[in-house]
């Protein structure tokens, strides 16, 4: 039960964000599911891994894969799915506590929380970069091999 409720909240929040971003009506639910997926991955891997930067990285990889695949399937921009799904992973709490420690005068705690928050943001960026670059590369390799095959066929016909 403790694992399911955050996912549902993430789903609700993502759905609302999808409306704020004016996402097309027929893709609202799909994009909101992305937000839920990220949280689900985070919660599931929490049982195995204790380092939460890695957890964020895994969750981001999952949602980026989801976004890229759905974008190809529905022939729409990847941003539609990615921007919405990313929001529940944004470390809002980290930013807030960094600020709170600083105004309370706990400079050491503030710095360590701040760096932790930066690491999490870095994990989000790296996750997206890894998946998007890989998908692009795979697509280009596939395109190239397709044209090569086509050329071979043409040769075969001519000769």
């Amino acid at each position, binding site marked *: 039960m403790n694992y399911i*409720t*955050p996912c549902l*909240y*993430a789903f*609700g*929040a993502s*759905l*609302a*964000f999808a*409306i*704020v*971003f*004016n*996402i*097309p009506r027929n*893709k609202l639910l799909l994009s909101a599911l992305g937000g839920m997926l990220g949280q689900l991955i985070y919660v599931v891997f929490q049982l195995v891994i204790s380092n939460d930067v890695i957890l964020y990285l895994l969750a981001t990889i999952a949602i980026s894969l989801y976004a890229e695949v759905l974008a190809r399937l529905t*022939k*729409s*921009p*990847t*941003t*539609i799915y*990615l*921007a*919405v799904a*990313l*929001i*529940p992973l*944004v470390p*809002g*709490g980290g*930013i*807030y*506590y*960094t*600020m*709170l420690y*600083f*105004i309370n005068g706990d400079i050491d705690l503030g710095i360590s929380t701040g760096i932790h928050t930066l690491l999490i943001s870095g994990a*989000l*960026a790296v996750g*997206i*970069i890894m998946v*998007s*670059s890989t998908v*692009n590369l795979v697509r280009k390799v596939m395109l190239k091999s397709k044209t090569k095959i086509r050329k071979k066929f043409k040769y075969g016909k001519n000769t």
Partner: protein
Amino acid sequence: MTITQLSHVAMEMGVILLSNGAETYRVEESMHRICIALGAKEAEIFVVPTTIIISVTLVGEVPLTRTRRIHSRKIDLTKVSEINHLSRHICFEPTNYKDLLAEIRRIDTIPSYPYYLHVLAFAFISQMFTLFFGGSLMDSCVGFLIGIGIKLQMDIMSRFEANVFFTNIVGGLIASTVAVTASGLGLTTNMNTIIIGSIMTLVPGLAITNSIRDIIAGDYLSGLTKGIEALLIGAAIAAGVAVPLSLLRPFWGG
């Protein structure tokens, strides 16, 4: 299609894409694709988040260059998606100028979701994230109110064309004022959760995503611009939240 018409179509589509929250590299790519598909010999396009420059060459004609400055940006991904469809359509089958213009006008006037739904969405985001970070039902209701307040405040300020950072500072200010007051009145016990949940409405999710995607695509200029925008918005939110926290807490004893 004449060179003027061609550049006009490409420019209109690019403007809709850029001013509704598409990535910069997507704008460049689709404008280039449209120009080539409509019969241009060469098309050079340069896009930064505030400007589009396009230079088209047709066979046997003088090259034409146009510039457009983007003043207002909002987020409407329906339009981005529709323009994306249209540019794909143009590449596969030729369309004449009049139909294209009519289609672009139709996309430009697609209504977004009604206003009350946007307000409700803001309230809902704030409520859901308060629950998400471990708040109780009462906390989430305070979050709901803050969400409505932030949405109304942002719209009023954007009507007067206040800059983004100031808008976010005031948004953070509202969130933490209401939360500190609520906890001072004894309505809630964990104001931190409420504040975190309600400032999630201000998080620049699209700017973060777009900046990363622009950097991957090799568009460092736009990527860095958007990334710094996202960072500054985050700093603005934190600054806005900090003020009532340090000023009001001594009185309420939070």
